[in-house]
């Protein structure tokens, strides 16, 4: 774990005026046995995802493995504006397309774990590459907030990101942060809370595909909606089926996909029952 210097804004005597935005944030570390919302952190490697995670949850966290996998999984908790959040750190990946273990884990958690919101951490200095992952996540779920991190490094390199126009283009909120210093994390959480509460509606952009693919997708989406009415990501499922994704094929055959829509309607705070396995505190 990166030994970044941690300042707890709620600690007594902390009177830093500039980070007033963080006052309502309380790092809970592992002192979280129940929660109101589950938030997942996705992102490319080396985007400061761990800094975001540590700044939000503090240095104490559950470290275990994803069930049946040797990929480590970190979880932590925090309280924001009175609500308790569980934060799940997904493995750093560049995409969700391949069958690599890391990508499978991220993909499965986003789809079947049904987190209430996904923060995609992006490197402001390499936004183009990072958007590849964000676009793929947005195909699965609309509950996405893009955290444009490393703004300090971008500034040094003379790179500016127009967050307003990016938000408009993507159809999901984009928040600029410097996770190492905690800058912008208060804004990030406020936006995440608003997305979860439905106060901010997201309309994620759809990837433009060649007409030939579009026709095929439309046809499959119709069929999938017949089996799983109201499935929010039928287009993405169609995509995966066209790609011959075994996991998704199996989920369709077993009815797992159809059940996803049910759970979405009854229980918005589903806590990923199949994925909870914590080996203990550090």
């Amino acid at each position, binding site marked *: 774990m990166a030994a970044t210097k941690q300042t707890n804004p709620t600690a007594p005597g902390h009177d830093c005026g500039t980070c007033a935005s963080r006052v309502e944030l309380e790092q809970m570390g592992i002192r979280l046995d129940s929660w109101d919302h589950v938030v997942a952190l996705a992102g490319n490697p080396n985007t400061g995802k761990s800094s975001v995670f540590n700044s939000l949850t503090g240095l104490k966290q559950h470290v275990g493995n994803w069930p049946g996998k040797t990929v480590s999984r970190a979880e932590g908790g925090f309280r924001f504006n009175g609500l308790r959040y569980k934060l799940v750190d997904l493995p750093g990946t560049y*995409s969700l397309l*391949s069958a690599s273990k890391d990508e499978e884990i991220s993909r499965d958690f986003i789809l079947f774990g049904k987190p209430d919101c996904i923060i995609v951490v992006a490197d402001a*200095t*390499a936004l*183009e*590459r990072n*958007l*590849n992952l*964000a*676009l793929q996540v947005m195909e699965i*779920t*609309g*509950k996405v907030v893009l955290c444009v991190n490393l703004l300090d490094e971008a500034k040094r*390199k*003379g*790179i*500016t*990101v*127009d967050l307003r*126009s*990016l*938000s*408009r*283009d*993507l*159809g*999901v909120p*984009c928040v600029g942060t410097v996770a190492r210093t905690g800058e912008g994390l208060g804004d990030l959480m*406020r936006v995440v809370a608003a997305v979860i509460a*439905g*106060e*901010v*509606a*997201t*309309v994620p*952009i759809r*990837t*433009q*595909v060649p007409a*030939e*693919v579009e026709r095929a997708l439309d*046809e*499959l989406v*119709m*069929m999938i*909606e*017949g*089996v799983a*009415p*109201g499935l*929010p*990501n039928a287009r993405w499922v*169609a995509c995966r*089926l066209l*790609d*011959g994704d075994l996991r998704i*094929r199996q989920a*369709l*055959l077993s*009815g797992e996909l159809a059940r996803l829509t049910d759970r979405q309607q009854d229980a918005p705070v589903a806590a990923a029952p199949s994925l909870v396995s914590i080996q203990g505190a550090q």
Partner: protein
Amino acid sequence: MRFQEPPELPSHTPLPTGLAGAAGFPEVTVTQAPAEAILSRADALRRDFQTNFRDQMVESIYSQAMALAARSVRRDGNNRWDLDQRIDRIVTSPVWGLPIMAGMLAVVFWITIVGANVFSELLFDGLFLVESWGVSLFEWLGAPWWLTGFLWNGVYRGLAWVVSVMLPPMAIFFPMFTILEDLGYLPRVAFNLDWIFRRAGAHGKQSLTMAMGFGCNAAGVIATRIIDSPRERMIAILTNNFVPCNGRWPTLIMLATLFVAAEFPPAVASLAAAGTLLLVVLLGVLVTLVVSAVLTRTWLKGAASAFTLELPPYRRPSILRILYTSLMDRTLFVLYRAMWTAAPAGALIWVLANVRVGDESLATMFARMLQPLGRAIGLDGAVMLAYIIAIPANEIVVPTLMMVYAKSSMMMQEGGYEAIRVLLVDQNGWTMLTAVSLMLFSLLHNPCGTTILTIWKETGSLRWTLLGALMPLAIAFGVCFALASVARLLGAAG
């Protein structure tokens, strides 16, 4: 209703969340199409596509990301950035990119060879002095001969060999390699080589996994996870072995120094050795490309997929991190593994050399039995025996070979390459053909036990693992046999 700007959150009207309710799919289900029908329709559609579906998707996503980033990212004129771009224009230029790369490799090899020579000799002398002390001590204590022999001439000598042959080149090569890595040069290598790999039907990132293979093929096989397409990943896994790993460097360095460099005047000898290594590596790359092309046209049909390669900014390498990664993570890790396999191998060799059947030791007997096979490919039975014993780890090929040749404990009194030269050339009749054949065999033969195990874990398939192990072996035998036959036909060597 589009998304609203984050900080002020002006609209607090509760909107339908996400897409689910918002889109409002008609509740009237047309036909309850069963899941199977969807799957077979998807399969049929996929078959009908003009181009590979995966590639189309990846391309769509990447071009969309590029368009989005272009709309919202602005770069100011920035000196650092400009400098990076100017350097990139040179090191990734179509004309200079590849020569610069080869030149850098040659320099790295040259420094490694020159430096390793000095330190190997020192270590050698020191460690074998300890052996003679140990033997004396045991004799003074009145220990039985077989115990002295087993522990000191067997186990200890195996360890001493591995340390003195492997440690110096590794301790020099790895830090230099890590500097290139830390600088950010490796992604440029991938960029330079991309078009070549593409033509062989492989993925441009394969050059990165090959770079990892220089350190350890098992690590290289694991590194293929960065390749998205399963087809191209399999090619990268199956061919990673053709990059000589650090366990094989010492063998190659030794042969290049002893045989090739010896043909040149001393002033340019080390340059000739470095050039030889470069040739060996280039040959490995060539074989990789040929095998990739063949696989692409046979078992792993398909077209190379598109990918965007991010060229990260050049960074000043951090000395501490380089020392840590190269020495702790790489050198010591590899050495530790080698020692674990060398000790039992040393013991095994000692037993083979000292258990007698009739007039000859087991080692001599096995070597004699393997002699025809070895001769056919320009080598001899002892080399074959050494390669069989060294299946768990390539590192111990040379030590094993030395011990099979040396037989008695008398041999290794003086250290360094000179002793090895005397042993190989004067006492066992090695020629240039033997040396070249061994270099080729070392480059091409089957991966070590660890790598085979890794291939099995990564592919989860016994069939691919077998192919990954046997195909290189067949190529090694084929190439060496062809070379030996041609050489003998021309009367170059006996």
